């Protein structure tokens, strides 16, 4: 294959990574932006989505495509409920104090990981894609499912965007983000908003996981990479800035696709993590954010 088509392939692969990453990172960005909670267990919500998708698709006695559609609906719901419980039972009682919540979400991370290991086992297990066809480009054939992932992720992101900017729920969320005391004074139930946002953030990670699991397999340790990459995206994009998060997801996903096609993946990760640390040190508002105060 020539360089041109090879680069195109790398870019499409990168676009798939970007799409899934954007979903996961927007979930993390929402919880940080609105609740000021750094959710270290976010990767485990992703893992929980993938693992529960395996259970749903292998237990439901219906055709694979239908089972997958059910998983796409049920798994985010299940993960969302788990997250809401974690918020109400743990984070709320800590008053969302930043350092305590990080320690607590580390604890939740271990609990969820152990639960998955006990129930699901240590093996990686595949989930069948709902459909299989190849789209033939002039130079190579490409999985139709992967292209569908890009479309689906874009649709969900558009939905989140509309929810936040065009609905009453979004208005209430934004009001809570800007000033939670004033919001409370206007009769907004801030506790419920927080629980909802935490659940929504986790559900977005779960949707991303269900979409990727036919490509990647479910495994109880699969949460680490999405967590790290989402952190990178959210920090580069500016903590709490949704638009920045999307741009950064596209940037990181594409460059990840291109870099890991041409270079060693470990080296790419080292450079990315160091870059994040340096961005936080020298430009804490992110590459795209406005300086805070």
């Amino acid at each position, binding site marked *: 294959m020539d360089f041109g088509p090879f680069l195109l392939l790398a870019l499409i692969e990168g676009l798939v990574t970007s799409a899934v990453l954007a979903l996961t990172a927007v979930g993390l960005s929402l919880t940080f932006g609105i609740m000021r909670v*750094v959710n270290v267990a976010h990767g485990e919500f992703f893992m929980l989505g993938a693992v529960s998708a395996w259970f749903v698709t292998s237990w439901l006695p219906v055709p694979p495509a239908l089972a997958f559609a059910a998983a796409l609906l049920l798994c985010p719901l299940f993960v969302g409920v788990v997250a809401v419980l974690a918020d109400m039972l*743990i984070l709320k*009682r*800590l008053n969302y104090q*930043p*350092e*305590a919540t*990080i*320690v*607590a979400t*580390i*604890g*939740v*991370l*271990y*609990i*969820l*990981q*152990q*639960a998955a*290991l*006990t129930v699901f086992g240590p093996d990686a297990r595949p989930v069948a894609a709902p459909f299989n066809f190849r789209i033939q480009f002039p130079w190579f054939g490409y999985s139709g499912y992967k292209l569908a992932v890009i479309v689906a992720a874009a649709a969900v992101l558009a939905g989140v965007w509309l929810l936040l900017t065009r609905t009453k729920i979004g208005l209430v969320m934004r009001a809570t983000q800007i000033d939670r005391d004033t919001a409370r004074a206007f009769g907004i139930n801030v506790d419920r908003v927080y629980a909802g946002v935490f659940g929504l953030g986790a559900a977005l990670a779960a949707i991303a996981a269900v979409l990727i699991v036919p490509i990647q397999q479910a495994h109880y340790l699969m949460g680490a990479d999405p967590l*790290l990459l989402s*952190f990178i995206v959210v*920090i580069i994009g500016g903590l709490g800035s949704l638009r920045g998060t999307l741009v950064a997801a596209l940037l990181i996903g594409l460059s990840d696709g291109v870099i890991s096609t041409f270079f*060693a993946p*470990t*080296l790419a*990760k*080292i450079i990315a*993590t*160091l870059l*994040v*640390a*340096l961005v*936080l*040190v*020298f430009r*804490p508002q992110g590459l795209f954010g406005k300086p805070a105060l």
Partner: protein
Amino acid sequence: MTVRIDTALALHLGLIALLLALHFAAPDYHHANLAKIMVLAVYAMGYNIAYGYTGLLSLGHALFFAAGLYGAAMAITVGGVPAGPALIAGMAAGGIVAAAVGLLALRTTGVAFMIVTLMFAQAGYLTILYLGQWTRGDEGIVIAQGLRHIGALDLTDEGPRYLAALALFTAGLLVNLWLVRSPFGRVMVAMRENEDRARMLGYNPFQVKLVALAISGLYAGAAGAAYAVMFGYVGASLASVQYSILPLLWVLLGGAGTVAGPFLGVLVMFYLIYYAGTLTSATLLVVGVALVALVLFAPKGILGAVRERLLKWLP
């Protein structure tokens, strides 16, 4: 003339005397455990100097621990240095890496500091994997038995190993006690309690925190180097994020900002996992539940609660 008895010093010397007595009294299995616990307690003490006293919640101490581990192990296997100087090299490596990280990371505070240290440690962990040609990555370095002795002291033998661990622990504990009761220790606590007021009084927060972090790194490096030489194995898993979380857990459990707390935390956690291990294989669950329960119900840890209720003078 009355002799003023230093109760706090006496109490900590008592702990050391107890551990020395256990050298002769403890059953073999627990004897071996205690040696490991003392080495890890030095690591936890280092973490406590940064987090418990200075208020620096780092999620990247595994990097400093690993600097000690690999500093000592590679000095021996690659550099051909004897174990004694290798220990010093490991300790120095921990301090230098901590100071270097601090120069950058201490420009941030709070959550950003946690993430920056986490990222640096992650980069360090990945670098160890990437340089597998020399570090042997996940498989790790095994230090040959013949190389693991300091002078006449054979550290592969249970007895000398316990005493060497006790010597390191004693030094760590007494220096820690002296440090936190020194004027500089008070300034460290001032940074934790109210950085702005300390700055107004003329202290330079960046400088104080940098020194505290470097001391913390020296402790972590010393513990790592001792771990490498005493137990003869160094692997990438010891540099993973879990080894950044563990000292935090130990310190929270034993009591942040207490001198003996880190030791108590390692001891309780070690045996908690050990006894939980006889009941269930779900050891991660124990760690997770312990973390959540601690922040929810006992944010001050064991010795922190004791200090609050009974012994106000406990350092």
